[in-house]
């Protein structure tokens, strides 16, 4: 479910890639500082995008030269300094990872899910204290989603909406100053959420069929054309919302992710396997 919202690297400028990496490292360090070293393992691209986006709206954070904990022999690298935006992104990262793992363990008894649950146990209560509203939104969103999945819902729009609505709530809680930005972010979150849920479902549909687990595309026997339509539509709506945001910084890399990264990923996965 994670890692789909990422840049199209071959189209990035070298300095944009460096900027992207500095936020990735910055988010990693923020997670480490707030939740402990072990929690860094759930770091994902989607929350890096969130950090870049929020800092893009409120103003970029300075970079510092720091060494990576896991690569002590490498040179120091630029790392985005911690700020309210990165802290928010780190809370969301922990919460999403925990509830996803919880869901995996309960529904499919994946050992990886259990392991992540155990590792994040302490972090969860801290994240709940830091972002209580986000905690509620994610817990109820994932619960609703797994109810729908267990009942074998025959309309892909319904589970997609449950996930999308959760993302809308999360992005509406963003610590940005301007209220209208928050409304636009919420709308963008809704459509990105739809897209994330559906692209993940499309990506997993063959594995799900083998395992016999629920998949919104398998229950309706959707062909590529039908999937392509809803996936692209969701991305295009997210683009429209993004166009209404006043982006002060990080514009190059954000444009890349939103205009190219997501649609390229969609195309790649639609073409990728012919199943």
């Amino acid at each position: 479910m994670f890692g789909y919202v990422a840049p199209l690297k071959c189209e990035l400028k070298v300095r944009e890639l460096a900027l992207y990496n500095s936020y990735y490292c910055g988010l990693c360090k923020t997670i480490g500082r707030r939740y402990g070293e072990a929690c860094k393992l759930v770091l994902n691209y989607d929350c890096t995008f969130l950090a870049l986006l929020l800092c893009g709206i409120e103003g970029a954070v300075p970079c510092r030269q720091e060494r990576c904990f896991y690569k002590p022999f490498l040179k120091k690298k630029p790392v985005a300094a911690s700020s309210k935006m990165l802290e928010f992104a780190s809370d969301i990262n922990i919460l999403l990872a925990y509830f996803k793992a919880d869901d995996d363990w309960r529904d499919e008894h994946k050992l990886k899910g259990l392991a992540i649950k155990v590792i994040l146990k302490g972090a969860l209560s801290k994240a709940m204290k830091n972002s209580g509203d986000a905690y509620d939104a994610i817990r109820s969103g994932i619960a609703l989603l797994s109810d729908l999945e267990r009942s074998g819902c025959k309309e892909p729009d319904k589970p997609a909406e449950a996930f999308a609505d959760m993302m809308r709530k999360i992005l509406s809680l963003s610590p940005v100053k301007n209220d209208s930005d928050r409304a636009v972010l919420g709308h963008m979150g809704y459509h990105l959420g739809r897209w994330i849920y559906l692209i993940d479902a499309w990506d997993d549909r063959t594995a799900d069929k083998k395992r016999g687990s629920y998949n919104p595309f398998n229950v309706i026997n959707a062909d590529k054309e039908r999937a392509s339509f809803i996936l692209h539509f969701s991305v295009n709506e997210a683009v429209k919302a993004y166009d209404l945001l006043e982006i002060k910084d990080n514009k190059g890399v954000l444009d890349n992710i939103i205009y190219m990264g997501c649609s390229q990923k969609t195309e790649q996965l639609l073409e990728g396997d012919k199943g």
Partner: protein
Amino acid sequence: MNPYKVLGVSETASQEEIRAAYLALVKKYHPDRYADNPLKELANEKLKEINEAYEALSKKGSGTSSRTSYGSYESSAGFGGAYSGPFADEFAKARSYISQNNLQAAKLVLDGIPVRNAEWHYLYGIIYLRQGWYDKAREYLGIAYEQEPGNAEYRNAFTALNNSGNPYGRGPYQNTTGYGGSCSGCDVCTSLICADCCCECLGGDLIRCC
């Protein structure tokens, strides 16, 4: 407000550059692109700002500028409808609820209508579209179009929906470089002929031979 910043051009930009930037932005925030979108108002405000910036800059330029900016207008997709069949009153009521964005009320009205004709499927499709259920929206608008292929409103809605669901269908605005947006030889010729006609109307001539 700094008009140069709004249009995203440098302060040394020529009138042509300003105009090109302006047209690109009008496309980007065009009401048609944000029809059926809850962010319509914001897009409209943005367009207003762009228009003001452009007007300020074109006045500053030649002083004799006759290029008028695009007025900020409501979406061209009005929601009147010219349906006259069974249950016309109920359908009209549902339409007015939809135009007020009261989707629940519109659904209730539609659920109470026993016929399942093209109008019914069309209105239900629009409701699904507004609430973000695109798979359902396409199914219903598709049925409406099939039931009454001659109806321009149903056909337009269905084509518009399909266009925005294709990879490069960001409405008129396309940012992915390399696709579309090119100017063909045909475009150049027609533009020249057009310009020539305009000149001739005003007593001048651009292309001597025609």
